[in-house]
């Protein structure tokens, strides 16, 4: 399927999203809520692009991350109105995460006006929703987006320690604004109002995971059984491959 992006012809698979095509072809489109592993959510609206499909007389604005390509089309990823939309979105989101380096940099890049900061919980959260997906992918879903409208926020039920949270911090790792607080001191990790004991690596002795996480992982496959941190696990793997090859 022939798709023209910014005047250049590209080849798209039927049904793939505009964003997937552009990422593959190295055409930059800014996003907050997109992650390769989870697909498009259509939530942040940074990825709005103009599309004119075969048979249409006018182009229209669509979210690149959710729009499926099904027929020949012309796409424009940068234009005055697209720029205007992205500038406003950055302006609005920067209020939630004013001192965050990512938003600071984007505000400068887009020349977004400065609006007074607002207090959000957790601080710096821009509600991209990636943490919810990460937790769900782990099979836990300890957090979700609670309430609605301007009160919407990511939380555990009742803002209390959740039985479903195993302290793996996958949520914190995908967060683009470092809004999810992970406090670690010696053998203790605190996250989402819950305290976890950390397990140390059987080889190097570094604290690297919570007991709950390791128990869960070992139940769902043989991960975690050797009690190795990421570095030592990779070393181990490399060693095994080498031995096998010899």
């Amino acid at each position, binding site marked *: 399927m022939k798709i023209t992006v910014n005047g250049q012809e590209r080849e798209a698979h039927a049904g793939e999203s505009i964003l997937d095509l552009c990422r593959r072809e190295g055409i930059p489109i800014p996003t907050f809520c997109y992650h390769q592993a989870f697909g498009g959510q259509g939530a942040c609206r940074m990825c709005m692009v103009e599309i004119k499909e075969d048979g249409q007389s006018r182009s229209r*604005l669509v*979210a690149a991350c959710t729009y499926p390509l099904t027929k020949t089309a012309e796409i424009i990823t940068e234009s005055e109105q697209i720029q205007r939309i992205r500038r406003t979105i950055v302006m609005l989101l920067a209020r939630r995460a004013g001192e965050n380096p990512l938003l600071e940099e984007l505000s400068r890049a887009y020349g977004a006006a400065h609006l007074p900061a607002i207090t959000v919980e957790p601080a710096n959260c821009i509600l991209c929703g990636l943490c919810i997906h990460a937790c769900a992918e782990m099979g836990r879903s300890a957090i979700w*987006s609670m309430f609605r409208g301007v009160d919407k926020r990511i939380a555990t039920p009742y803002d209390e320690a959740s039985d479903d949270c195993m302290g793996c911090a996958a949520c914190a790792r995908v967060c683009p604004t470092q809004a999810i607080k992970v406090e670690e001191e010696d053998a203790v990790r605190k996250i989402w109002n819950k305290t976890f004991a950390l397990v140390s690596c059987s080889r190097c002795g570094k604290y690297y995971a919570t007991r709950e996480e390791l128990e869960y992982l070992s139940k769902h496959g043989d991960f975690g059984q050797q009690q190795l941190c990421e570095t030592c696990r990779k070393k181990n793997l490399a060693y095994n491959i080498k031995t096998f090859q010899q």
Partner: protein
Amino acid sequence: MQTEMNLGSDDRQTVLVCCGTGCTANGGREVFNAFETSLQDHPEIQVLPVVKATGCNGWCEKGPLVRLLPRDITYCSVAPADVDEIINKTLLDGVLVKRLLYRDPVSKEHLTSHHLTDFYRKQHKIALRNIGEIDPGQIDDYVQRGGYQALQKALLGMKGQEVIDTIKASGLRGRGGGGFPTGQKWQACRNASGNTKYIICNGDEGDPGAFMDRSIMEGDPHTVIEGMILGAYAVGASHGYIYVRDEYDLAVQYLRKAVDDARQRGYLGNNILNTGFVFDIDLIRGGGAFVCGEETALIASIEGRVGEPHDKYIFPTEKGLWGKPTVINNVETWANVPVIVLHGPASFAAIGTANSKGTKVFSLVGKVVNTGLVEVPMGTTLREIIYEIGGGVLKKRSFKAVQTGGPSGGCIPAELLDLPIDFDSLTEAGSMMGSGGLIVMDDRTCMVEVARYYVNFLAGESCGKCTPCREGIRALLEILTRISEGQGSIGDLDLLEDISFTMQQASLCALGRTAPNPVLSTLRYFREEYLEHIEQHRCPAGVCRALSIFYIDPEVCNGCGVCARHCAVNAIQGEKKQAHVIDESICIHCGECYRQCAFDAIKLR
């Protein structure tokens, strides 16, 4: 009215007591009960009149309404104490109870029937055709007025495609807001691949200031059900859902009974009218979220998820409920379907404008004399509705604007009163048809506050998923609040427009894309009022508390004391028949005195 004469199986007298929400709040149920009990005390009456509780007649202003057939007499504001007199004089002796008749405010004549009033004469009822005429709990009442004949006609003599062609030819467009051509929607669903398809009736009416769907579900539930069955037959669906707003208890009650009755009669179930056609309906009570009026959010809600919409680049007609092709239409749309199928598309298409056919039900409310439900042909002007049917602005104040389309719509000024209303004309005027709320506003309504009110409504009703809607609404609300408190600046107006642009262009669903309409339409037509708030720190309507300082003009005040009685904080003092005074140190600027004074003695500084 020939149709009503045929209502009973004989020419027995019939007493129709309106038990719509409005009349019930005014004691309609008690009146109904009084008729039932009092008639028992008249053994001399050989054939007892039939007493029926009906749905909303739409004329809530004059309720409780009691109608007597076959003579077509309408009594207004009836109290249980009036019932004996009605029985003795009218039912037994055939004499009218004059004091209960409606008195035309212009001609001063007493009118025997509500059908003779301006409020009704100018209406054209299709969707509301049965409401007030039948007992919504009795399937026979519906059948006697031609109900389920369209279903017989379709199932026994038409192919599914022919039903769709009929709807297409009628020009029917969705009554829920967007005005999408109904036939086209059905066609897409029929053409979609797959054997399992669904029909949904969207009864999650949420526009503040609109209640037409409620009245239809409460007053004529079978027309909705018959419409859905016809739709199911046309697209090939075997299951349907009615998603009803949780607050609408009475609607749920009547719909539940109607579905059961229809099933018992063979209009629903595994072998409808012995044709082998299978279709059934489940009732779902909404969770209470305005955003669920949006198709994809409604589907999420039925599937047991939070009502967050998703991008509709693939329409629900292809991938809807449980991923299957689904047709969603609103209550009023379904109510039109049986009429179109039964009488053919031509008579429907003959009504209305070039691109908006048929009629539209409006809930006419706010500062207007006759409040209630009105159904008029598309293309009727706002002036006809507000002045001829509605009787003009309340208390003879001056008309300022009419809000149409709820939070997705806008405010239309006096200059556009002669606008013939249809889907397209309202959109061009910066508003929207929406589901049909018409809220009349007078000079005591502040347009900045109206915009702020809608944005505040949406702040709590947006699902909060996408940035432009959630953060845009938050910012609009802050700016409008600032302006209404006298803290706004000229630059705020540009900011309102800039944020609105992004919301319109980039929001995920229609809620966000239309959310700026109340702001943009008031900025377009009432910019001076914004400027007056910003530059002169004055709210000309006397509504914004921070900007309204009231005083009593001693030359005009006659000391009636109404203002003092209504003052919440006892800030008004004065001797009877002497000019009163407001104590500025106590006054909370609520404006209640300003609105209550019948002599305009209270002024705005």
